[in-house]
């Protein structure tokens, strides 16, 4: 059944399943909501469903379904921000790199494509897509276009895309995926049926980690709590050496509390230049800070295995210090989303003096 491989998201599932059962799917959807909660997984499943030949669509085992899962289906167009170049040889290299990354992504679908150069969805990408969609479906199903991180379209690309949405073809379906829908052109948003995806309950993530990744119960619970409702983040933590990062977060906080700026800069230096690490680190730090606040009010804490260290840490920050730190962390996270230098974000969040932190 459609979406039965998806955790949670009952409202979103119900909305689309109903349309699917009644045979009145919209021509374009916008799946929006926080990162790592199943938007893209749902979009992939919908693309499989509209092209599957089995009785119970999507079967996820037939040739069509398998080729969509591996991004190799001629009627499935996967668009995501990638690097661009004006030189032909460079473009060929990029195409190879994208193909390589899609191969990895087929095995690890929650991983976004990652490049060490600036990426975007440009007008050339939209033109290619338009060209692909202008042809009859290759296998007679319905052409599906999945635009991942649709908010990364350039202005030109957005306008070209809008034109395509304005003249939809009955044999194609667009699924836009974004965690920042407010950045999309309002005219694009208004032409899509919006489906909201929410943060997942920690219990659901914990169950997934227990069953699918054979994690010990304590670790699964801690990780689920730290993932903050995002399965994608939990899986990323799992892959990226979660325990080391957690230790680093603690070291950073302990250095900050002790006023050990050398230790702090050293720790920041270890994290600032790695993709995604500053974000994860800030979340981990936030989790510890919120635990300190919880501890103060006698509530239950996530980092239960380190309650003694937590108590010491809390004393180190004192009363006003903790509140100010929480505020700075929040601003630093917002700053990271707006492309502020990660190092600067980490420094201002952690090294700022209470009440005197520079604004981002």
């Amino acid at each position, binding site marked *: 059944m459609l979406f039965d491989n998806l955790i949670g998201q009952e409202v979103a599932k119900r909305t689309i399943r109903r349309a699917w059962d009644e045979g009145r799917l919209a021509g374009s959807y916008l799946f929006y909501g926080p990162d790592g909660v199943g938007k893209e997984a749902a979009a992939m499943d919908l693309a499989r469903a509209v092209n599957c030949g089995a009785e119970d669509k999507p079967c996820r085992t037939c040739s069509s379904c398998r080729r969509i899962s591996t991004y190799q289906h001629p009627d499935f167009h996967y668009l995501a921000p990638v690097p661009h170049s004006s030189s032909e040889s460079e473009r060929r290299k990029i195409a190879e790199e994208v193909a390589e990354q899609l191969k990895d992504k087929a095995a690890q679908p929650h991983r976004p494509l990652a490049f060490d150069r600036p990426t975007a969805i440009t007008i050339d990408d939209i033109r290619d897509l*338009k060209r692909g969609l202008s042809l009859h479906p290759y296998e007679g199903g319905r052409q599906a276009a999945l635009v991942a991180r649709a908010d990364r379209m350039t202005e030109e690309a957005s306008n070209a895309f809008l034109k395509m949405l304005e003249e939809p073809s009955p044999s194609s379906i667009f699924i836009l995926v974004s965690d920042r829908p407010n950045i999309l052109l309002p005219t694009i948003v208004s032409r899509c049926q919006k489906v909201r995806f929410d943060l997942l309950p920690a219990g659901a993530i914990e169950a997934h980690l227990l069953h699918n990744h054979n994690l010990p119960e304590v670790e699964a619970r801690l990780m689920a709590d730290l993932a903050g409702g995002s399965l994608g983040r939990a899986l990323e933590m799992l892959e990226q050496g979660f325990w080391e990062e957690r230790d680093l977060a603690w070291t950073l906080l302990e250095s900050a509390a002790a006023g050990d700026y050398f230790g702090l800069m050293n720790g920041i230096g270890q994290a600032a230049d790695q993709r995604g690490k500053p974000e994860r680190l800030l979340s981990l730090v936030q989790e510890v800070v919120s635990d300190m606040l919880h501890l103060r009010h006698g509530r239950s804490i996530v980092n239960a295995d380190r309650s003694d260290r937590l108590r010491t840490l809390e004393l180190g920050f004192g009363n006003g210090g903790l509140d100010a730190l929480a505020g700075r962390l929040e601003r630093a996270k917002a700053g990271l989303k707006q492309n502020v230098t990660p190092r600067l974000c980490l420094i201002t969040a952690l090294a700022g003096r209470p009440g005197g932190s520079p604004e981002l």
Partner: protein
Amino acid sequence: MKFTVAQDKLVAGLQSLIGVVPTKSTFPILSNILLDAQEKKLVISATDLEIAAVTQVEAKISSAGSVTVPARQFTEIVKQLPALPVEVEASENRVTIKCDRSRFSIVGLPKDDFPKMPELKKDKSLKLAGGTLQAIIKKTLFAVANDTSRPALCGVLFQMSGDGLKVVTTDGRRLALFEAMIPPVSHKSELLISPKGLNVVNRMLGGDEKEITVQFDDSYTKFSFDGTQVFARHIEGTYPDYDKVIPSGNKKVMTASVELFTAAVKRVAILSDTFTYQIKLSLRTDSLELSSQTVDIGEAKETMAASYQGDEMDIGYNASYLLDILKNLENDELNMYLNTPLSAGLIKPAKQADDYKLTYLLMPLRLPE
């Protein structure tokens, strides 16, 4: 899979397909070709998902089977081999090529990943002489739009009815209409074929006179000749009603020599604006004056003989569009049917060929005051 094949035959087969293989794609399998050793013959397929081509090569098959190999490397290897029998053997995905004292081993990809060749459902068909199809391609493809904002105009319209076959291309500024005199077709159909597919067919046809079977359903057109098949995926969309734009009341007729007119346009165009290529045609009684000018560079003027009996008129055209049309008129003389300096003009050969009729429409450029 194992087969032996003559080097020259294999090269010919591969070279006809290599144009279909895309140079960059996010589908790695598309840079491969499928070698399928069937009973008594080797079937080679290539596709870029828009065009698919299949060709057969005579071969001695020792054991049937199929594998995909990187198209460019495989073709290059076979091309460089001496003209002797080539033995190709695949076990799993490793393909060994042996010929004389050379031995190559390349890594293929499993054939299951290779896109299936299209199958036509409930197809209709017609027969075309190779020469006619090549004339269609040569005389109409230049007017296809390459502006993706109007996908339908990026295709070549094949319209079949009791009147025979009409082929139309237009980019909104010019239009080419090719009416082939073929036996009436009982079914009425309209196909929008991608120019890329037609170019592939054109290249494969070469100079020989062949009969082509054209089969089609809603999604594909298949061109078959000499054991080769080319599938072109149709473009979706509705083609504009071109009949409405072709004027019927253009009473002013100018007749001129194609050769002289072409030469004059080429000369005058040298000093035309580099962006609009605008030249001015001044129609006078029994003469035609061509002129152009570019500010700060200079101006050109040339008068040539032409038969014209209407009111005197000045009209502007894009010289490069005009030349695109002129080079496709094989007759000695052309007729231009005009109305006003701002309405569409028609250009036709003064005498149409025996087996087809050509009509070109060209929109004028507004002359500066």
